[in-house]
């Protein structure tokens, strides 16, 4: 088993990166690898509750994010610094995530076999 870490760094909807990262996470989980899914930089906007993308004809990925645990993806983090910079807190988020510091992020990267940032 390998540790595959994903850094989701882009906001939802404006580009396809957030969805592309989610699809890689789910594929890795299907292969029963150890997965770390880390939302940071603009990526933390993906977690905010209350998305209503019907008006822009975009798919709501929140259902998939809420199902992460069912897929065996238990290590879901948000970089605390990225939330703070955007005046966000855990109370704004739709799914349960663990906050991680920059030092914890660095150490999660260090202990990974492959890191993918999208």
């Amino acid at each position, binding site marked *: 088993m390998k540790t595959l870490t994903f850094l989701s*760094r882009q906001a939802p909807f404006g580009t396809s990166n957030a969805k592309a990262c989610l699809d890689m996470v789910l594929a890795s989980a299907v292969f029963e690898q150890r997965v770390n899914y880390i939302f*940071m*930089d603009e990526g933390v906007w993906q977690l905010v509750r209350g998305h209503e993308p019907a008006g822009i004809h975009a798919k709501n990925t929140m259902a998939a994010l809420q199902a992460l645990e069912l897929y065996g993806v238990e290590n879901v983090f948000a970089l605390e610094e990225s939330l703070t910079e955007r005046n966000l807190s855990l109370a704004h988020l739709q799914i349960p995530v663990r906050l991680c510091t*920059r030092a914890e992020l660095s150490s999660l990267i*260090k202990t990974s076999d*492959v*890191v993918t*940032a999208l």
Partner: protein
Amino acid sequence: MSTLHIVSSSPFDSNAFSSALKTASQGDAILLIENGVYAAVDALQIDNLMSGAMPDVTHYVLSEDVDARALPRLRNNIAKVDYAGFVALVCQHHNSVSWN
């Protein structure tokens, strides 16, 4: 255990370089490629970003991308590598992160 951080966007345009700098830890390396090489110029804004950076991180720049862009003076303590050097850096570090 160390990581190669590969930065491919200009620091004047994206937070890729800044994120890589903040995340890199002791023994890691940062390699600037494509528009990321603009983070190698000797400029005040880059100095400001660098001021909080981990001291024990080596910075490299891909020479083919520098030559293509006619960069003015590069900042100190940055080493040029070619594609063979890029491959060697990938092998020397146990993983890599591509910051775009």
